[in-house]
């Protein structure tokens, strides 16, 4: 309970909390340390150990040296693929979601409740139900095996989340504000630009962080709809594990894992508050 007087319970609380924190940090620490150990060093002992001499070369190899499926350009091209998928899809889905969320919450139009209800069903529909249709649609419009195809998928699927986030935020804006602006002759876009957007800072951050993290970390579509060269980094990591299965290069692989995880980890570190808000907003629906 929230009392500071009873020392033994407080010590126990700190002890348990520290133990859990150590358990949560351990995997990250192990990978960071391994990324600085040579493959031989790891092979002689185990994955868990302190680097004897800092093998920074692992990062150079991981970034632009090692081979995945006959291409020896490291993880760099796949990082670029992930960025080229994630950044446009995040921007498009957030902007379109903000406008749609604003329309649904503050303009009210015929069928708004229905269309909003259907769009939010996308939070629940498993990706497996959309895999085959996406395959066929992307092939028919000529976007199969392209980064643009994945941008399209993530933009459309992301709308379920972005519309929900923005709509729930804009609902709290007083209608009088909009009504007054309309009486003054302001139209849909003018109100959005002048009144809504300046109020939207926090929710746009939540939405952008959520979308970026999810699209960057996505694997199933990435591995299904792109061939080797065009794959996002999540798919490349799996391909790398398979490629080196016979002669493991755990040092280099650890460096690759760290590089691949870094963008979302940094976003989490700097935008943690908004990241958590997205998590809980997505859950409560």
């Amino acid at each position: 309970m929230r009392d500071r007087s009873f020392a033994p319970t407080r010590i126990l609380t700190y002890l348990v909390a520290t133990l859990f924190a150590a358990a949560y940090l351990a995997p990250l620490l192990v990978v960071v340390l391994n990324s600085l150990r040579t493959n031989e060093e790891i092979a002689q002992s185990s994955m868990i150990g302190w680097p004897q001499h800092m093998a920074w070369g692992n990062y150079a190899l991981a970034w632009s040296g090692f081979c995945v499926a006959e291409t020896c350009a490291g993880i760099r091209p796949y990082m670029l693929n992930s960025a080229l998928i994630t950044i446009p899809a995040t921007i498009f889905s957030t902007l379109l979601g903000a406008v749609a969320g604003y329309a649904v919450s503050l303009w009210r139009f015929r069928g708004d409740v229905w269309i909003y209800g259907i769009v939010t069903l996308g939070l629940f529909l498993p990706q497996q139900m959309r895999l085959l249709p996406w395959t066929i649609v992307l092939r028919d419009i000529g976007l199969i095996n392209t980064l643009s195809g994945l941008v399209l998928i993530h933009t459309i699927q992301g709308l379920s989340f972005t519309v929900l986030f923005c709509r729930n935020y804009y609902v709290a804006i007083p209608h009088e504000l909009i009504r007054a602006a309309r009486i003054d002759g302001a139209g849909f876009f003018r109100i959005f630009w002048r009144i809504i957007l300046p109020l939207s800072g926090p929710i746009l951050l939540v939405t952008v962080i959520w979308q970026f993290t999810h699209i960057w970390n996505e694997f199933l579509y990435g591995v299904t709809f792109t061939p080797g060269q065009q794959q996002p980094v999540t798919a490349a990591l799996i391909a790398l594990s398979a490629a080196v299965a016979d002669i493991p290069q755990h040092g280099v692989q650890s460096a690759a894992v760290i590089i691949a995880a870094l963008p979302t980890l940094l976003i989490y570190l700097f935008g943690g508050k908004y990241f958590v808000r997205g998590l809980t907003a997505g859950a409560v629906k």
Partner: protein
Amino acid sequence: MTSAASTATGRPATSAMVRRLPEYLMIWVPLLLSAAHLISFSIWTIWISFTPSTLVPVAGWVGLRNYNAVLASRNWQIAFDNLLLFGIAFVLLSLTTGLLLAILLDQRIRGENVLRTIFLYPLAVSFVVTGTVWSWLLNPGIGIEKLVHDLGWTTFHFDWLVNRDMAIWTIVIAAIWQSSGFAMALFLAGLRSVDSDIIKAAQIDGAGPIRTYWRVILPTLWPITITVVVVQLQFAISAFDLVRALTNGGPGIATQLPALVVYDLMFQRSQLGRGAAAAVLMLLILLAVLLPYAAWRYVRGRQAAHA
């Protein structure tokens, strides 16, 4: 728009429509695309599941043959049993872990922000990364078992990753590590919103800390608990990346899960009809969780409206 009259100042209706075309497009195109893809893709997949499609989708009707084939396959049966075990174990353990962490952080301890950041960071990491890292840690040849052997305890055994009977538990471990922070975040928000008056009242009545938690605070958390359970079950039912990176369904097919069966049928065995049937079965399992939840939310919403 309901109040077109207030903005269209007496001009002909058609020119008002044209003038407002950009906003109609901006609103309707994304919403309609989103809604249309959800509905049509679901119907499409359901339709394919009733056709004799193999390498490519073909027209035709085979009734429930694909479903029977999937349900009769060893692959699916193992996947379903695994899902039951994984779903229940993962949800229960991540609930308990999350609740424990939330209660710890609720003690106004020093460094709360740092601890919360630590417990939540796995959520920012992809399942592929989580699965890869845990596949190293749990690999008896290079991971924890090897470390303990090197430290001198040579009879130590921790080979779940390569043990058919225990491998599914490695997925439970990695999944808990990844997402118990989510349960913690929701529980902590719940704990922080408990009315401090009822806590004081309980303390005045002489209830100790444990008793106050058990009798007064925790009962207020059950709506949050249900939400957490549903979200975590939703994850468990569609788990794919994590298993793909951690065990890839192995050893053998010991850690097969429905999402892997779907992928295997669709893209490795070119059995589109059966793959679609397996996807629909996944959806049905999901609905078995979500429909009662939706009904519960609806009833609660009505009760709140009447209260």
